[in-house]
């Protein structure tokens, strides 16, 4: 079931969402959680498209302690983010603090890991557990 979508142009974001939705539905996520997962994917993919030019979004299934979860992995070799603390702060995103952006993604999922080095790229891993 593991699969990835390359993000090069804006319509790839749609493909990534579609992939995420299919996997989420198959795993048994309800409509609200499906929407949360696809919104998170959208935000991550849009960041790749806007700031890194290209990269990849992968959706995986994970299991831990009897729980089933969906993992979103977003990876690019773009410019990276130098001040992660700042970026993860509410109200920082260029969209003007509408709650979206990376802090929004973090709220939509249960686990959120980000690694980024200037000049090397960004790797984000987000997990949503099935309740």
């Amino acid at each position, binding site marked *: 079931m593991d699969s990835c979508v390359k993000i090069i142009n804006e319509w790839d974001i749609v493909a990534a969402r579609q992939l995420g939705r299919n996997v989420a539905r198959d795993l048994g996520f309800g409509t609200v959680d499906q*929407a949360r997962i696809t919104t998170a994917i959208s935000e991550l993919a849009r960041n790749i498209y806007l700031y890194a030019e290209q990269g990849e979004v992968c959706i995986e299934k994970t299991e831990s302690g009897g729980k089933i979860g969906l993992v979103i992995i977003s990876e690019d070799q773009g410019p990276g983010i130098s001040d992660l603390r700042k970026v993860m702060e509410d109200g920082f995103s260029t969209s003007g*603090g509408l709650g979206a952006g990376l802090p*929004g993604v973090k*709220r939509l999922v249960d686990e959120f890991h980000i690694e980024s080095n200037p000049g090397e790229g960004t790797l984000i891993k987000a997990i949503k557990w099935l309740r």
Partner: protein
Amino acid sequence: MGFRDVMYEKYKEILESYMKDQDEKALYLSQKFSRKSIEYKISPEEIISLHRTALAEMGAESLGSVMPSFDILLEVMMSYGLAYREHQSLRTIQQELKSEIEVAANMQQTLLGTQIPDVDCLEIGALSVPARQMSGDYYHFVQDEQGAVSVAIADVIGKGIPAALCMSMIKYSMDSLPEGRQEPSLVLESLNRVVEQNVDPTMFITMFYGMYDTNSHVFHYASAGHEPGFFYNHEIEDFEEIYARGLLLGIDKKTKYRQYEKKVEVGDIILLMSDGVTECRTKDGFVEVDTLKEYIKKYIHLGAQEIVNKVYKELEYLQDFQLRDDFTLIIIKRIK
């Protein structure tokens, strides 16, 4: 039954009743429901999903062709949900900040606290009210064994936390002045050097320093660009300005201050203030100095502290209870 199931049942009930008779009661119940769901942090997208599920279960499948539209609605509501959650967390942060500032404001009150001197021939009243939680105004009294009462009143240009931080520094430099009687002009000169060296060049401080000699009843004073005070002459029942020239503190470290003096008779009053008093703004413009004088005259028969309190009440009322600047008023009345 979990709490979400309870909410769902409730919602369905309201919806069913409204679908039947479209009465106001169901709408009122919906409003109550909406408050409850905010209280329980249920986000907009969950409400949409609740609605759709309820419709489907009520057998409104005749609406089948409309059902997919809820997917769009739900998706559109996602960002509102996120904005809502961000708002929640910013609110928590704001509350934390607020209580932090409250603690700081209390510390400042303790730090800047000063005892009003108790001398037979004088009656002294003082009141300082910050516009926000922390004050950029400062006043301080010192009494020495030879019978002099010194008073300092200062105002940092600006308000809030930066002004308050700056004020704490002034307080410390005042405390570290050499003991004993100090000529007002010399006090200002030495404070000026401290401020010039230590304070951000964009911060300016005005200060009035006066020393009342209780033996000769002469008031010696100097000012570093501070709001002029007033002198009330009891005999002619009129005011004159306590005028003193001088550059603000912190502009030029070589500034010299001129010292002035004024003989004070029984019944005379010295009024010192920060610009929050004279520049207190109402919707019709600034409060005129004359208005201020009128208020003082109106209460002149009262004790010094009472005059201060009453004048503050009047000005507070004039400004619709919204102080725009820190307010400090000091009254020194010679009573014998």
